[in-house]
């Protein structure tokens, strides 16, 4: 069982306490939200990289050199 550290500022005493069911549920919600956000972020990064590669390819097909493509889109 996960535990939390609780510092009572009125006494200075720190205790290790088991999480409540509500806190456990919140942890699960947080983890799920992060996983979802990461999946979206990874997909956006992949799409951006794919679009950049496609743009480079099309510019080269038009006759631009590697240096010219790099100057345009880095």
């Amino acid at each position, binding site marked *: 069982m*996960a*535990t*939390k*550290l*609780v*510092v*009572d*500022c*009125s*006494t*200075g005493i*720190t205790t*290790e306490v088991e*999480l409540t069911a509500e*806190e456990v549920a*919140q*942890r699960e919600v*947080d*983890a799920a939200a*992060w996983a979802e956000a990461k999946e979206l972020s990874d997909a956006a990064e992949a799409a951006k990289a794919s679009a950049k590669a496609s743009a480079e390819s099309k510019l080269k097909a038009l006759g631009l050199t590697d240096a010219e493509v790099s100057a345009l889109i880095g």
Partner: protein
Amino acid sequence: MAVTYKLIETVTVGSGGAASIAFASIPQTYTDLLIKLSLRSTNAVTNRNVYLNPNGSSANATARILLGDGSSVSSSTSTRIIGRDIPAASATSSVFGNAEFYIPNYRSSVAKSISADTVMENNATASVSSITANLWNVTDAITTLTFVPEAGDFAQYSSASLYGISNS
């Protein structure tokens, strides 16, 4: 002479890690609160956010985050009181990130603004620093502050120090 910047309590996480760190029964005798944290998450990724739950609540919060990672900048929003990325288990080993939360007028009967300033710290090309403008839209005085990693636990040797700030 008035005590205007006083360490109230400090805590360091032990060998088992901790799912959260809470300061309870916060004295209602200061003007503002400042919390300085040195944190690392046990989760098997490079970085994780840290959340602050005033009075144990994760609701009624909004945030605007400004972030830089050395190669790009971005902004985003959150419905949690948040400090962005602290290092986690896949970051450079034994490195802890720094975070600071400032809460003016924590005893007031209006909504509370909470600013956060964080830096991930990572001995690698990529790292993250951020500032966050948080709003906790609750009129209760703050008596408890709970810090929670987005996932995993706070690693051993993570620490938190609560300071009371007085205006006179």
